[in-house]
């Protein structure tokens, strides 16, 4: 991974829509809300799902205003359907 970039992981239907399982975003963003438009720009097919998605930062659920930093792992999580 490039130093200073954020690693974005996609799962389930989000991986399907994005067409990849992971991406890198190297930009100066401070929160998830600032990161999302860049992810969407790379993978516009995710846009219709936005309202259903949850996020995790470094393996724990996070909200839009939560901080993200270079080196973090951000996961894009569709509605879970285990069981």
């Amino acid at each position, binding site marked *: 991974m490039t130093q200073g970039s954020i690693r974005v*992981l996609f*799962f*389930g*239907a*989000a991986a*399907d*829509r994005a067409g990849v399982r992971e991406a890198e975003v190297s930009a100066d963003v401070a929160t998830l809300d600032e990161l999302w438009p860049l992810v969407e720009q790379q993978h516009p097919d995710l846009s219709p*799902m936005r309202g*259903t998605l949850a996020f*995790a930062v470094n*393996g*724990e*659920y996070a909200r839009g205003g939560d901080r993200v930093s270079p080196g973090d792992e951000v*996961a894009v*999580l*569709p*509605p*879970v*359907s*285990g*069981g």
Partner: protein
Amino acid sequence: MAGSFAIVEEPIDVGGLVSAAQRPDCGAVSTFVGTTRIDESDEASVEYLEYEAYRPMADRKLEEIGAEIEERWDARHVSIVHRIGRVDPGEASVAIVVASPRRGPAFEASRYAIERIKEVVPIWKREVWSDGYVWVGSQVGTRS
């Protein structure tokens, strides 16, 4: 509290989980097993389910559910095992085993565990039908 929490890629040994939960201070072992069901619609039917997980977050969430159960009930042994990958019809995708001195807490805690799994554990299932697939909960897929 004894027990185990795991995400596995092979068939779940439900009998082994139940045996491991039996103990002299408990009069109840409650077991929930979620299995793959064949749904049908018009001309098509489900052929199998395929699960994927975000690890290790999913592993940690299973352990957290165990800790929540320990706070709420007198559970002496809790095992939660979720399978990922392809799961064929009738096979177990998840097994929950709770041992408690009495049946009430054992039933309640095992019910709680499956409901929490469906709320917070980052695991997803894809139904693979004879005419395409669909991600459950997202309705994204290739079925017409």
